[in-house]
């Protein structure tokens, strides 16, 4: 009896799906790695979040232009400096047919706050959620939180009843040494439903015919297949076995552009690559200079900056796929000021003069730590920088290593000169300023300020930014922090990454700075 009802419902759903979209299409796409888990609170990783976004939805989301839009919440207002009230969208159903209510929001917020959740960066300052009635919730914060809405775009909603039934009230905990049900099964409210999943092979999503929103594209099935090898991934695109590749290798972009069957869409990524310098040790760890630290002298930092030709890096190493910069975050981030982002012109003569003034007319030796599988052309960039620094007599030993060894090393401050890239998922300057520029301290202050740059004025400005809710004042504070830091040459910004997506020419997509493909906007001819 029950089973037959399900079958009938399924038949109707399928009929609806095919009936409404006569030209419905399958999108087959690929990138290097696989989705790690289906659990929406277990892995805060780019690809994982991209796929989660199709199955699970947050209260508020980002539109095509990255502006905050309504999603599972239709309205919101601050009822006190520390409480925001959300009205939920009525008549939303989970994929298993159960209704979405305030209980599910309270549960999901608690779940994302759990110690095993990987989403703590998005939960900073959030203390909990309270049900007012079935369609109203209040989310409370420790203090005034100007970036609450951007944070909530990454907090996806699960069903409390489903989680209880399958015993997945907490995100996966590696201590328990067992697999959780939520890692391979999913039940969200989003436009697509998980149909099948084979790790490292294939994940299939099909259109949710009961979705509350309106599909702008014509895709009714998504097939994701990771292909690790660059050459094979491109071959699959060229032979038409996949329609879309998220991460085509940069060196192949010029050739792909010449192929009439292939389309390349480029856009700014919300990620900035820069060099950091040890400015706190009294003697550098990996250098020939003994008894003092040359990077404590601003003239040396400036000389390094003047020696590096950012435009040459762009044309020679990045093949045009970068936007040289003088600031620490990308133009999409709130608080960005074009006036500050004037690229420093290379000036070798002046760099040499500064080195001589600082007492290093013959230069010195230093080690540059560099990842080799994290950012676009990371190792090649470091090689080019080493060659440029050699021209002001700084002999660079390059220490390139895979990310799994690189990050633990530099996070222990075990470096004299390093390269790092920083993305800003909240699209708000505080995220970058607090992590990179603030003096190392508690609660995320300076947690990636690995050269320990420190300026009390910058700290004061960032601390003010943490609680300031007025947008104009925030922009002014951001500008102030950045200008002081720029004058200090606290870091050496290199460029904002540009990310190309490659697809068959019949596919149209919306390119977003967070490198996320949203299939609800994809059209296939």
């Amino acid at each position, binding site marked *: 009896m029950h089973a037959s009802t399900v079958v009938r419902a399924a038949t109707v759903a399928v009929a609806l799906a095919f009936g409404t979209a006569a030209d419905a299409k399958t999108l087959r796409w690929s990138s290097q790695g696989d989705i790690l888990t289906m659990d929406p609170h277990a892995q805060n990783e780019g690809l994982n979040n991209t796929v989660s976004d199709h199955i699970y939805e947050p209260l508020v989301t980002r539109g095509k232009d990255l502006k905050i839009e309504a999603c599972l919440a239709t309205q919101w207002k601050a009822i006190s400096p520390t409480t925001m009230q959300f009205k939920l969208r009525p008549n939303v159903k989970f994929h298993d047919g159960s209704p979405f209510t305030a209980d599910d929001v309270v549960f999901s917020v608690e779940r994302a706050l759990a110690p095993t959740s990987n989403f703590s960066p998005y939960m900073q300052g959030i203390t909990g959620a309270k049900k007012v009635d079935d369609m109203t919730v209040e989310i409370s914060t420790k203090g005034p939180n100007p970036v609450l809405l951007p944070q909530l775009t990454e907090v996806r909603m699960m069903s409390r009843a489903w989680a209880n039934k399958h015993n997945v009230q907490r995100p996966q905990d590696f201590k328990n040494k067992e697999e959780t049900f939520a890692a391979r099964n999913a039940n969200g409210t989003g436009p697509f439903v998980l149909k099948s999943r084979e790790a490292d092979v294939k994940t299939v999503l099909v259109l949710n015919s009961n979705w509350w929103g309106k599909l702008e594209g014509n895709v009714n099935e998504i097939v994701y297949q990771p292909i690790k090898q660059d050459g094979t991934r491109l*071959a699959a695109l060229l032979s038409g076995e996949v329609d879309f590749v998220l991460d085509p290798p940069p060196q192949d972009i010029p050739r792909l552009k010449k192929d009439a069957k292939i389309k390349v869409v480029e856009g700014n990524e919300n990620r900035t690559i820069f060099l950091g310098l040890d400015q706190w040790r009294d003697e550098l760890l990996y250098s020939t200079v003994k008894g003092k630290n040359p990077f404590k002298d601003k003239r040396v930092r400036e000389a390094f900056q003047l020696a590096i030709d950012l435009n040459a890096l762009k044309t020679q190493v990045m093949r045009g796929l970068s936007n040289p910069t003088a600031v620490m975050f990308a133009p999409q981030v709130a608080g960005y000021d074009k006036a500050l982002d004037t690229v420093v012109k290379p000036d070798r003569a002046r760099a040499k003069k500064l080195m001589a003034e600082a007492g290093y007319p013959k230069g010195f030796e230093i080690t540059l730590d560099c990842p080799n599988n994290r950012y676009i052309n990371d190792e090649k960039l470091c090689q080019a920088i080493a060659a440029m620094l050699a021209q002001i007599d700084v002999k660079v030993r390059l220490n390139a290593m895979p990310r799994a060894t690189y990050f*633990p090393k530099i996070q222990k401050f075990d470096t004299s000169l390093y390269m790092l890239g920083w993305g800003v998922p909240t699209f708000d300057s505080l995220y970058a300023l607090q992590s990179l520029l603030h003096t190392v301290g508690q609660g995320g202050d300076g947690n990636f300020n690995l050269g320990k740059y420190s300026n009390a004025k910058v700290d004061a400005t960032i601390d003010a930014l943490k609680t300031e809710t007025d947008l104009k004042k925030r922009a002014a504070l951001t500008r102030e922090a950045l200008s002081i830091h720029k004058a200090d040459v606290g870091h050496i910004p290199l460029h904002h990454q540009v990310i190309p997506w490659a697809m068959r020419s019949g596919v149209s997509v919306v390119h977003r700075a967070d490198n996320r493909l949203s299939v609800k906007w994809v059209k296939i001819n």
Partner: protein
Amino acid sequence: MIAFVIRRLLQGVLVMLVVGFIAFSLFNFVGDPVSLMLPPEATQADRQAMRENLGLDRPFYVQFATFIGNAVQGNFGISLRLGRPVSALLVERMPATLELAFVAASLALLVGIPLGVYTGLNRNAWLSRFFLAASLIGVSLPTFLIGIFLILIFAVWLGWLPSFGRGDTMMVGGWSTGFLSTSGLRALILPSITLGLFQLTLIMRLVRSEMLEVLRTDYIKFARARGLTNRAVNFGHALKNTLVPVITITGLQLGAIIAFAIITETVFQWPGMGLLFIQAVQFADIPVMAAYLCLIGFIFVVINLVVDMLYYFVDPRLRIDGTAAGGH
């Protein structure tokens, strides 16, 4: 006989321990999985807590002993990347690797032996020279390059065969097989050629040189003198006697095919154990790497043991050695 097997088994255990030890020592250099498992914003305290949870804070020898203790019971822990038991992952991936290895080995034998016989019998034919020259490619080109070439030709230019994956698979009693669907069989072609080409050329050259040697022996001359047909001489007498070394080499190469499937699997995104291993390396997924290396070590140990035992039956001298070991 029993003493011989026991001695071999003990040696096998020793080899396994050494493999496990070396594998474990290597992990100190692959990096810290904790940095990949926690968000960048995690504090030092968070990292330390995670390290303790995973047991990574304990001294090396304690970790190693725990690992061996659990491994003996078939428990290799949980994958840090996929959050699933490692043993389940390996069992899931094994059919893909074994099917690929099986097809590659069959290909090497079924093509390699006839080619070897032909080139051995017709030393100076231009076709023989062609095969020999072509076999140099199989010996000298690296596997990934052959794979990329095949993909370029047959998937991109001609569009005949898929460039990656296993096609549609079916479950037959817990074993996922690609033998039962057209797309599964088509998907097998390029990777199995890539994987088997080296073995194919090796077997061809081996059979050829053995044939040349055997054809010069007296019993072949006598067989001809008896007026036996060419066919009976070449296949009934000559080929049969060349096969003993071929069987030995094939047995040993089977282990190599399974172990070195890593490269082929990576090039063709073939979802086998090798691909699992490569991905584990990038993620510093220690439990998967350890289990895989031990498994490969185990396969080699077993194959060697079987080959040794076959020798024991085939070669009577070994049996005499065993009983009169003191005589040396």
